[in-house]
């Protein structure tokens, strides 16, 4: 990479900026934080103070034109589109936190804005910056353990991530509930590993607000090669997080975090095989936030394609839209206290 540091603007200075993106940018020798933009400038100033930075502080993106080489947008989901389109129209490349947008129309607008400006539009799927994600893709493509028979992914915590604005618990601001806020990371990887599903369905516990738990089902292919997948997500109870892919020969287990992949054969031999890459493209000493920013910088400089570009991000938005379109309400018989008492 070139020696001149990339001048990054961080748009939105809430929890994601504080915990992930600003530390990720500061850890990179290729990046300098040139601007912090927030509708509440005092929040941006506080963030700058906390990290000992003196960037341009602004409440309006017009103030950063000419002063930055690219922008990282980590604002509530509903604002991704207007901010990104405005920046792209001013010639500023954008890295947008996941999901790309809350509607397909917004996502399309963003992609078109990037394409007509000839600027990078990347989507922040930090979980892609793990070599095991790519190793699993290779294993699946090569049918190393036979055909895929089915898979199950789950992730559940009681509460968790608390953005300053609280947008994650507002359907209007986030575009959905746990499926959007947490699940879209997996949906993106699922699209990468298996492609776009041929069929999908969703059951969730929304009663008008964002769903706190959901079960999505997907189906791939037909005939002997057909397989199903399930995605169970919760923000109200804990689930040991990870993915299990059942193949002809056994189960591939992919826990979340920095764990390797494991293969457990059907023959119950008592052995598991640890599947690790022979070489790491994404060194573990760097956070995924740092790796993501460095990929964005490389993309802006024409040195590498963005890990997830706008069109790829749009695919996940389309799947979210399809899942919510087929949504059915979870039956909750336990809510009938009088009936339970009887």
């Amino acid at each position: 990479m070139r020696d001149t540091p990339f001048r990054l603007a961080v748009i939105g200075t809430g929890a994601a900026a504080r915990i992930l993106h600003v530390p990720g940018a500061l850890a990179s020798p290729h990046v300098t934080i040139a601007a912090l933009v927030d509708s509440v400038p005092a929040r941006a100033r506080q963030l700058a103070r906390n990290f000992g930075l003196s960037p341009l502080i602004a409440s309006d993106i017009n103030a950063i034109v000419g002063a930055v080489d690219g922008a990282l947008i980590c604002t509530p989901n509903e604002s991704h589109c207007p901010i990104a389109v405005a920046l792209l129209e001013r010639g500023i490349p954008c890295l947008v936190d996941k999901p790309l947008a809350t509607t397909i129309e917004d996502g399309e607008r963003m992609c078109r804005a990037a394409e007509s400006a000839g600027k990078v539009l990347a989507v922040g799927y930090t979980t892609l910056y793990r070599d095991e994600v790519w190793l699993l893709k290779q294993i699946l493509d090569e049918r190393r353990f036979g055909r895929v028979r089915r898979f199950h992914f789950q992730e559940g915590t009681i509460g968790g991530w608390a953005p300053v604005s609280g947008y994650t618990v507002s359907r209007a601001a986030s575009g959905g509930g746990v499926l959007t806020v947490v699940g879209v990371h997996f949906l993106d990887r699922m699209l990468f590993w298996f492609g776009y599903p041929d069929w999908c369905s969703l059951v969730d516990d929304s009663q008008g607000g964002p769903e706190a738990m959901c079960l999505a089902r997907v189906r791939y292919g037909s005939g002997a090669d057909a397989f199903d997948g399930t995605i169970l997500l919760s923000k109200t109870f804990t689930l040991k997080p990870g993915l299990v892919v059942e193949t002809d020969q056994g189960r591939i287990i992919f826990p979340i975090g920095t764990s390797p992949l494991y293969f457990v054969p059907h023959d119950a031999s008592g052995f598991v095989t640890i599947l690790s890459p022979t070489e790491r493209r994404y060194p573990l000493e760097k956070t995924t936030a740092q790796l993501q920013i460095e990929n964005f910088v490389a993309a802006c400089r024409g040195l590498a394609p963005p890990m997830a570009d706008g069109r790829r991000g749009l695919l996940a938005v389309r799947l979210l839209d399809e899942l919510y379109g087929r949504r059915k309400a979870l039956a909750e018989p336990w809510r009938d206290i009088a009936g339970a008492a009887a």
Partner: protein
Amino acid sequence: MKIALFGATGFVGTTLAERLGRRADVELRLFSRGFGNAWRLARSGTTLETIDVLNPADVERAVSGCTHVVNCTRGGPDVMIKGLDILLRASRAARVQRFVHLSSVAVYGESPPPEAAHESGPARPEPGSYGAEKLLQDQMVQRAAEKGLSCVILCPPNISGVYSSFVCNVLADIRAGSFALVEGGRLALNVVDVENLAHAIELALVAPRADAQRIFVTDGEGLTWRDLAEALLPLSERDRPIDEVPAHLFRRSPEPPPKPSLFRSLKHLVSSDVREALRRDPLLARLDKGMRQLVAAAGGRIEDSLRHAIEGPIKVRQVPDRTPYTSRYNAMQLRNVHHHIDRARELLGYKPVLSFQASMARFRTWYEVTHGYGEDFWPLARALETFKVEPV
């Protein structure tokens, strides 16, 4: 009745908010420190306000105009003690008609005496424990009551019911084989379904008498840990009965903390652990290096003697045999006191809305539906839950 509910996104707070939200005679203001845990409330579009209970002006504004206050907050010592103090002061200033506070049976300690069957039993929590903090809170509420605030203190045990982490954890331990029935499972179990507790809070808001003394709230007396284990057996996936073990396996005599000693503190200051930390400072690192060179120059015997004087003899930690019974609920069974709910019946007119059996049946249904128990993907979910690799 206009109620300010603090800690509205917790397990109890959410259940209470859902119950109160269905009542036409209640105007409700829900407060929480943040949105992170607000998912259960948010799914129905419930409006929530964030608050820092350590900010007196914010709390005063929140309580202003409210006739009743319920405190379900949890958090660090600052929230528990300073936050409660601010809440009590604001409630008094706003002349609220009733302040309902949640205590815990933990105030009676990990090994409560038989007298703890009744609220008047001696409260002797372990120093520095959660119970000690809750006892301090009770005393603060009692002082506020002496100054004229009408207070009710409810004292629940472990809280069960739909969404209960306690019951989920016991189930996980039963499945893992780490849970055992101590003394055949005959020891006393105190548990309250979250709906019963929320019902008790509703009663406490309007109870004619409020004496600011603890009131036990449980699903009723006479339950044992075997009752809980058997209620969870349909979900346990065990092919053999839960192990039964004697109580002595879990009786601990905690090591008394060492008495303060200037000599020990000085030795600690020059110990290798502390010096390692000090060496991060370049000046102190040079000083340390110089001292070590000086000692080394004095010869091996002197160096050894000095090390022995500072660090003591070489210690080798015993490595005990592995035990399968690692569940924290094994030792908890030794509490073995049934907390009676006579006062709740008398003062609040409390009668559980859900029996223990109904509570557990409801939990099982919730668990099956939300966790996919018995669904086609359940074997994969279980494979993930149970998968572990011994560290190399």
